[in-house]
């Protein structure tokens, strides 16, 4: 007991000796760290981005790898125990057979073929982040196959497709909100600060955008992308379309924030000391609105991921050979898949986890950024 008191006294003294001056960002960070769910969401998001950045290295195959003898093979798990006990990590091979009546492929575990997993495996060549070519993968098998999440109807490894498809899904989720943020911040600030007729016009434009049914509008715009465009251009086109439709909510939020900040005394004080309007917007209004801006941009990421997935699912988004989570789900779009190849739905699981992660992160940031909550 006594030592405990001494301990706490010591702590108090330590605090007194070095009074720490915390900036607003540091305070926000402290508050964010206390939110367990938010931190967990942040970690998930971080892992997802690391996964797609190092996608080529983490995935055992490349997108070009097609195994026609193992189409729609079910997932196989990594085992460390075989008939004789403990072993180095390995996967069993498949024994494929075809039902002569239904032409249904059946795969069974072939306990005789055992493929050991090779770490830092030299496999198919890929381009690492567009910087250099390498054939180094984190893991793979030297002979036989290893399809941890199964294969799709073209015989591609689903794990590889999900990791590499995440690139598109997640990069859209960053680029889209960034463009929305810029458009929304500019128009929202102008609307809120200038007010009057300008405000009215911008708000009516926002209402016009918002009153359109969303999916038909996406479809129309996506369908307007020329069919002969390369998949990269289509990708950029999709980002721009989603961003141009997504700025409205953000602009509304910024406008409200700017309107309330505009009436603050420190703005009057700045005017009274001879500041210009532009100076006030730049120096006083935007920095004060910045944390809320970033938070609402984070919160808009999940809807971007979903928007991309919906478009691709409907066949109007990203096109093969590019792949995204939505494209992968499109391939699982029929009853036969649900009945026979349920593993083709694993991309949906990734979408759900990513969106939950972003939502928790966004909620945590929002709570941390709000100076009026405890």
């Amino acid at each position: 007991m006594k030592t405990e008191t001494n301990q706490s006294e010591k702590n108090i003294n330590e605090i007194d000796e070095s009074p720490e001056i915390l900036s607003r960002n540091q305070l926000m960070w402290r508050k964010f760290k206390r939110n367990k769910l938010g931190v967990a969401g942040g970690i998930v998001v971080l892992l997802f981005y690391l996964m797609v950045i190092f996608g080529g290295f983490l995935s055992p195959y490349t997108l070009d790898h097609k195994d026609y003898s193992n189409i729609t093979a079910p997932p196989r798990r990594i085992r460390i125990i075989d008939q004789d006990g403990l072993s180095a990590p390995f996967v069993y091979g498949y024994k494929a057979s075809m039902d002569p009546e239904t032409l249904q492929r059946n795969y069974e575990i072939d306990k005789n073929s055992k493929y050991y997993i090779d770490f830092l495996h030299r496999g198919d060549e890929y381009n690492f982040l567009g910087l250099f070519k390498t054939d180094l993968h984190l893991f793979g098998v030297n002979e036989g196959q290893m399809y941890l999440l199964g294969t799709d109807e073209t015989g591609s490894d689903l794990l590889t497709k999900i990791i590499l498809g995440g690139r598109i899904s997640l990069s859209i989720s960053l680029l889209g909100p960034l463009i929305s943020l810029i458009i929304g911040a500019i128009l929202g600030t102008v609307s809120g600060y200038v007010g009057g007729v300008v405000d009215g016009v911008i708000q009516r434009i926002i209402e016009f955008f918002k009153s359109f049914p969303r999916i038909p509008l996406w479809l129309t715009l996506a369908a307007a992308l020329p069919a002969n465009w390369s998949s990269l251009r289509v990708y950029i086109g999709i980002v721009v379309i989603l961003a141009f439709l997504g700025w409205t909510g953000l602009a509304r939020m910024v406008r409200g924030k700017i309107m309330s900040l505009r009436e603050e005394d420190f703005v009057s004080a700045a005017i009274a000391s001879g500041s210009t309007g532009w100076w006030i917007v730049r120096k006083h209004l935007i920095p004060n609105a910045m944390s809320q801006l970033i938070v609402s941009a984070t919160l808009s990421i999940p809807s971007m991921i979903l928007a991309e997935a919906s478009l691709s699912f409907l066949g109007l988004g990203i096109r093969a050979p590019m792949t995204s989570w939505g494209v992968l789900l499109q391939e699982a779009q029929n009853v036969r898949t649900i009945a026979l190849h349920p593993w083709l739905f694993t991309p949906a699981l990734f979408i759900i986890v990513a969106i939950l992660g972003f939502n928790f992160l966004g909620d945590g940031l929002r709570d941390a950024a709000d100076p009026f909550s405890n």
Partner: protein
Amino acid sequence: MSSSNCVIDVKNLQTFFNTENGVVKAVNGVSFSIEKGKTLGIVGESGCGKSMTSMSLMNLVPRPKGFIAGGEINYFYEDGSKIDITEYDHDSEKMRKIRGNEMAMIFQEPMTSLNPVYTVGDQIIEAIKLHQNYKNKDELRERAVKMLKKVGISAPENRVDEYPHEFSGGMRQRAMIAMALSCNPRLLIADEPTTALDVTVEAQIINLMGELQKDMDMSIMFITHDLGVIGDIADEVMVMYTGKVVEKSDTKSLFSNPKHPYTRGLLNSRPVIGSKKRLEPIEGSVPDLLHLPEGCDFYDRCPKAMEICKNEDPPVFEVEDCKVKCWLYREEEKAS
């Protein structure tokens, strides 16, 4: 009054507001001038046009509803040249150069007048950078530290890097004063600067302002509804009622010999330490500025109302160096 010693000279200022129900005459025919190094106190109830007078001086009347309908606001520069502020657009370069540099303002709410996302030092530096040609960062910082030291903040070298939330109310008001004075303004407009502070801090701030005034030879226009504060700082006091000046005199004679019934009412409704007399509030309330009575605006509340007060608005009479807008002094002026 010789113009060489005068900092600001306001003549018959009229600041009106267009509202849905008609024109509100927030400031109606106010005239005054402030000499160099002197303090003018403006006293009055809420809504009597005190703040609008100061906003008009800065040419910051809330637009688009408010506007300066008439009168002159002559500001005299250091070199003696003058500028009529009412002739310039509120957003013109010339006005911006006057604000902060020639005339500075401190506000009622020190809690919200500082931007929470910047350190206090940054905000003082910002005020300096707006008007002065300092380029060097160290030099700017040094000046900010000097200003904080001047307004009596201890350990200014450390405090300069702190955020407004780390300052107490009194310290924030000191920081606001430091910001306002950072460009050596010749006129400081203080709009109820101590209303939000507790009494001991109030006294400190008033003393500080007095010292700085002597130090920098600056004029102060001090707005308040607290007569006790006015007695401490002002050389001359102007009492306002419904946008008009009802009495103007030097501070001593205002307290010893108040003339207008409204001024007397204000003084009687103020507690005096040691006195066992009951406080006498002024009966009634300020009339609606949209529906002012035909005669004297104070008629309904005045204990000395006469027949003439009901029908005719009194002109300003000069009695013993004081200006009083009350029919009671019609005879005295003739006599003197």
